[in-house]
């Protein structure tokens, strides 16, 4: 059986060195390279989507159309913002986190299908560019939900939008198949399913939803594209089509998809909360299984997006399922609270963002219950209340969790720590800016401000100006983040193998890990969250000795290069390890 101790007296190792920049710019089948590729692409699109948000909020500073000059331009900005944020930022970010961390966490050398993994990634950049090219031929303007008949009346950009989304869907299906096979089939001995880290559970649940839900989108998009180019009329009511068909199929995909966007972040914060408060996860099984039940129930709620367009008899059943899905989420929230309860909380940036997730996602979830109840939704449907609600879940939930993940695993990925001071600035500006932006929108929404328009009633001016100012703070906060990433690469402290003293396997190797991840066959610690026991402390001390941030007694120049000499060839350059002192939390 698995033992808790590392093999005795191994040479200490500092770092396998970062791969050269060129390695990230070309085809590679190494899951770590691919993970970084995903992350760079996703962050670039986050930047673009963010700029669009700033422009929209600038337009909304006044009740009339002025900045954009034409309401249609606002609509296209809104459409591109939504689509980019979802399909080119949050979803590729799952690929980033999942790719980099999951194989390491289960002690695998790579994903099950490395070639397929690379292929799935390389679909994304061309698809993203195709989406952006829409600006040249008249962009999509029908919102990220692309309801016909509106989406059939638009410019050619609408077609590019659909084709691009189709490609992105294929990419994420292929990626998800890879995750499922990897997680279910490639765990080492000593790691049964119920000892698997919670991030893996979350990615598994997400991947299952992707495989079973994304094809609905693919089917719907195929028909939409045929309507555009082949003269069919699946969605044209005047010629025997059915507009509600799109709404049904689209939401049959897209409601499960909102869990695609938040489940990975739930997995991330399950890791972060436990590690940074030095306490075992409370209710491990409940957290793992609630991910699965969210995945299942997620398939039964789609029509709550259509309370106002569907036959009224169907409202109550879908309201009930929508309320039910709050239950597993509630279980998670209480388990997380119990996890940090009485713990030794370290307010690292990763932890701050995880706590931010807890508070903001809670509001997102509660507003979800509000719009999920039919009588209220009849009033709130398509208002800014909904805009506020889904930003609380997507940004306050999804994106906060992703930030927590980046702060948590960045040292593993690059071998260098991020700046905690900048991290704190980033967090507080995000947190405050976020509430500042999206709370006034709730009021505007309740007062009846419709979404997806560039103009509004002058009586709503104050809420919109508040919201816009908040948005600029929120936009500025992201600059601290990007600056921090650059700062860390240039000046960051060397991280060492396990800067957070975490028990999961990704930390049982150097940062960054060597090409095949581990130096000998990895043996998982029996309980991935067994913090606070003497055995865990010993295990971590031994690990600290094996993968230190610096050698304890540097003997001239010889020491680092001696330990690096045993590494695979070509990785010794670029590692300036051994210059700064080893560190504890």
């Amino acid at each position: 059986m698995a033992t808790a101790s590392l093999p005795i007296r191994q040479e200490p190792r500092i770092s396998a060195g970062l791969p050269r920049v060129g390695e990230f710019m070309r085809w590679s089948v190494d899951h770590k390279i691919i993970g970084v590729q995903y992350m760079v692409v996703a962050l670039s699109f986050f930047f673009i989507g963010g700029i669009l948000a700033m422009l929209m909020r600038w337009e909304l500073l006044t009740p009339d159309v002025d900045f954009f000059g034409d309401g249609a331009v606002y609509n296209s900005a809104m459409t591109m913002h939504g689509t980019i944020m979802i399909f080119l930022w949050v979803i590729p970010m799952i690929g980033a986190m999942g790719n980099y961390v999951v194989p390491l966490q289960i002690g695998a050398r790579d994903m099950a299908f490395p070639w397929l993994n690379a292929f799935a990634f390389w679909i994304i950049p061309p698809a993203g560019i195709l989406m952006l090219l829409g600006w040249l031929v008249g962009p999509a303007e029908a919102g990220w939900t692309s309801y016909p008949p509106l989406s059939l009346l638009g410019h050619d950009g609408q077609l590019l939008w659909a084709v691009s989304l189709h490609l992105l869907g294929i990419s994420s299906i292929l990626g998800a198949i890879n995750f499922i096979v990897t997680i279910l089939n490639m765990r080492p001995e000593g790691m049964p399913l119920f000892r698997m880290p919670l991030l893996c559970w979350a990615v598994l649940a997400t991947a299952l939803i992707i495989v079973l839900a994304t094809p609905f989108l693919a089917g719907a998009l195929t028909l939409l594209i045929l309507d555009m180019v082949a003269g069919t009329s699946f969605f044209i009511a005047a010629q025997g089509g059915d507009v509600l068909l799109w709404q049904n199929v689209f939401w049959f995909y897209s409601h499960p998809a909102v869990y695609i966007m938040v489940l990975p972040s739930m997995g991330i914060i399950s890791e972060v909360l436990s590690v940074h408060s030095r306490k075992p996860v409370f209710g491990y099984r409940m957290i793992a299984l609630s991910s699965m039940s969210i995945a299942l129930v997620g398939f039964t709620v789609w029509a709550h997006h259509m309370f106002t367009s569907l036959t009224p008899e169907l409202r109550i059943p879908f309201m009930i399922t929508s309320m039910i899905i709050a239950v597993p989420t509630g279980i998670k929230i209480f388990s997380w609270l119990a996890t940090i309860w009485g713990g030794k909380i370290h307010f690292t940036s990763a932890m701050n963002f995880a706590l931010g997730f807890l508070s903001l996602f809670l509001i997102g979830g509660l507003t979800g219950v509000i719009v999920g109840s039919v009588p209220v939704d009849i009033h709130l449907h398509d208002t800014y209340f909904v805009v506020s609600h889904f930003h609380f879940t997507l940004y306050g939930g999804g994106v906060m969790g992703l930030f927590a993940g980046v702060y948590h695993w960045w040292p593993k990925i690059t071998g260098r720590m991020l700046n905690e001071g900048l991290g704190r600035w980033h967090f507080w500006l995000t947190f405050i800016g976020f509430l500042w932006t999206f709370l006034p929108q709730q009021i505007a929404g309740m007062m009846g401000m419709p979404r997806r328009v560039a103009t509004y009633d002058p009586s709503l001016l104050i809420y919109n100006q508040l919201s816009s100012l908040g948005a600029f703070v929120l936009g500025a906060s992201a600059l601290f983040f990007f600056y921090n990433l650059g700062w860390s690469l240039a000046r960051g402290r060397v991280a060492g193998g396990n800067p957070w003293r975490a028990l999961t396997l990704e930390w049982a190797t150097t940062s960054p890990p060597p090409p095949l991840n581990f130096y000998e066959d990895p043996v998982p610690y029996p309980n991935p969250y067994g913090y606070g026991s003497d055995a865990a402390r010993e295990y971590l001390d031994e690990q600290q000795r094996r993968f230190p941030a610096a050698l304890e007694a540097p003997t001239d120049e010889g020491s680092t290069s001696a330990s690096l000499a045993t590494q695979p060839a070509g990785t010794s350059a670029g590692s300036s390890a051994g210059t700064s002192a080893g560190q504890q939390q």
Partner: protein
Amino acid sequence: MAEATAHAHHGPSPQEQAENIKFGVWLYLASEVIIFSVFITIYAMFRAQNPDTVFHVREELGIALVSFNTFLLLTSSWAMVMGLRAIQAGKQRALMAWIGLTALLGTAFVGLQYVEYTELAHAGVAINNTNASVFAGFGMRFYTPTAFHGAHVIIGVIWALWVVWRAWKGRYSTENYVGVETFGLYWHFVDVVWILLFTLIYLV
């Protein structure tokens, strides 16, 4: 897919990787099932609501040609199974012959489907019939799933030829035939989808 995990002592063993590949193909087929079910559901709803239109089409169509075509596809699935048996018994040439036959029958299927499409087009069943036509609304709901299926057959034929080529290069053996097996899974899937479409469109 397999060559990238060539780090023999680190990655999964060949048997484990074969299991991984089969599992992956099953998941892929699960997602295909869903795309097809979208198209099939749309046809079924139309069928339920417009029995008259479907009746008119059936009058034009006749069932002889498509029944023969279905027979061809079923036979091809049988040939495929024989091919798999052959390689399990280590018979390379038989493998090539059977899978070659599979490809041939698949090609014939696509050819006859083309003939059927031409006849339908002559009869006036188009992808964009107007409301005035007796076939209104039928064409697009018929051509989309069947053409999508036809595309799968074409890809299957290419896949079969690739299997033949690899067999000719001696890549398969009694131990290593997962490449044939996965093709078989796919081909059976294509077959099953056709039986569903055939039943739904031509029989009920």
